[in-house]
């Protein structure tokens, strides 16, 4: 896969729609394509968050391991979603497992490379903030709504 093609794939991803050509050129150097078979572990809780994934095809379950019990699926992510937000939050450790629910195709961005670009070019960091903060906020709102346990009784 050439750099040029990866740049095109980045540009196609909804979270990169606002990024200008120069920013995409910068970020393409941090990106590579990845594939996971259905059932494969994509991330593991506690591991260093050295990558962030942009899902292009397939579904991923974010799971919490519970001692003596099967893990609980907390959230599923789908094409267009972002997996692994811990890349930007010190101490850069994944807070949950993530498992492919089907065959998954993704772009991964190297976290150290990304942080370096964001530090060096503040406009890139701001573009990230503008593109990703709404996505993360939306997911947080959805989790808050699930905390209400709306369907628990009477729903």
């Amino acid at each position, binding site marked *: 896969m050439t750099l040029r093609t990866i740049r095109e794939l980045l540009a196609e991803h909804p979270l990169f729609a606002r990024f200008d050509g120069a920013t995409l050129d910068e970020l393409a150097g941090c990106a590579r394509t990845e594939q996971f078979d259905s059932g494969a572990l994509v991330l593991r809780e506690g591991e260093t968050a050295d990558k962030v994934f942009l899902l292009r095809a397939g579904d991923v379950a974010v799971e919490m391991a519970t001692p003596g019990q099967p*893990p*609980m*699926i907390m959230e*599923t992510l789908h094409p267009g979603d972002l997996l692994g937000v811990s890349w930007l939050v010190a101490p850069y450790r994944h807070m949950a497992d993530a498992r492919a629910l089907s065959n998954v195709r993704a772009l991964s961005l190297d976290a150290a490379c990304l942080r370096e670009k964001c530090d060096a070019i503040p406009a890139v960091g701001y573009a990230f903030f503008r593109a990703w903060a709404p996505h993360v906020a939306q997911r947080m709102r959805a989790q808050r*709504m699930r905390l209400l346990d709306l369907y628990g009784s009477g729903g």
Partner: protein
Amino acid sequence: MDGAAPMLPVRCRVASAQAEGADVATLTLEPVAGALSGGAPGQFNMLYAFGIGEAAISLSGHDEAGRPMHTIRAVGATTRALTAMEAGAELGLRGPFGTGWPVADQAGRHLLAVAGGLGLAPLRPAILAAAAQPGAVSVVHGARSPDTLLYAGELSAWAAEGTPVYLTVDHAAPGWTGRVGTVIGCLPPALAGHDPAAVSAFLCGPEVMMRATAQALSDAGVPPDRIWLSMERNMKCGIGLCGHCQYGPDFICRDGPVLRYDRIAARLTLREI
């Protein structure tokens, strides 16, 4: 409903009782004598467990013999008594009351039915009516967990017949390959391929879920005057006399339960009503 005696329950018998999970049952009813009025999708009946109380329960359909079906979750004394009934048990029925889903007005548009929890019950007859035309309806259903999805068998049958069905649960154990998240997460795939301006939406479920879903649909371009919600308030008379179900200028029993979003959007954000 026979206008002469809307407060007088018709004596009915449970023709069949079907468990739908731990605390939910569907009762098919028949009159002990005489006939019942039909009722449109979205309307409700007041079901009376003798000596215990009455509860508003939506029509969840009619069986092949035209007998009304109601799906009930046990949450209090009346609904506990109703869900415990077996075939042959007797109860009272008043209705049907209220407004229905405007299914016939959606010709040429794509209908999106979004149901949270037991909200699938009042939407079921509207979905069945719309699905008579292939490709006319998509269904989104959210539940607490995979084992509490309502009408699981029927949802699979609808999907097998070509109706797009999007299921999501609040949490799940491994083995579940559907979505975990809110119904709002299902809206982008459900709307994909449709011009949102040509989509109509029927929403039924907890009010918080409907409020957020209506907002998300309208943000996505679905016209607010093409979104309907089935509202719920405590009911007594069911016919606009007692005021128990007042919701601003409307009585839910008479002007609702199905109300258009543009009419109630401002009220949905008021905490006092």
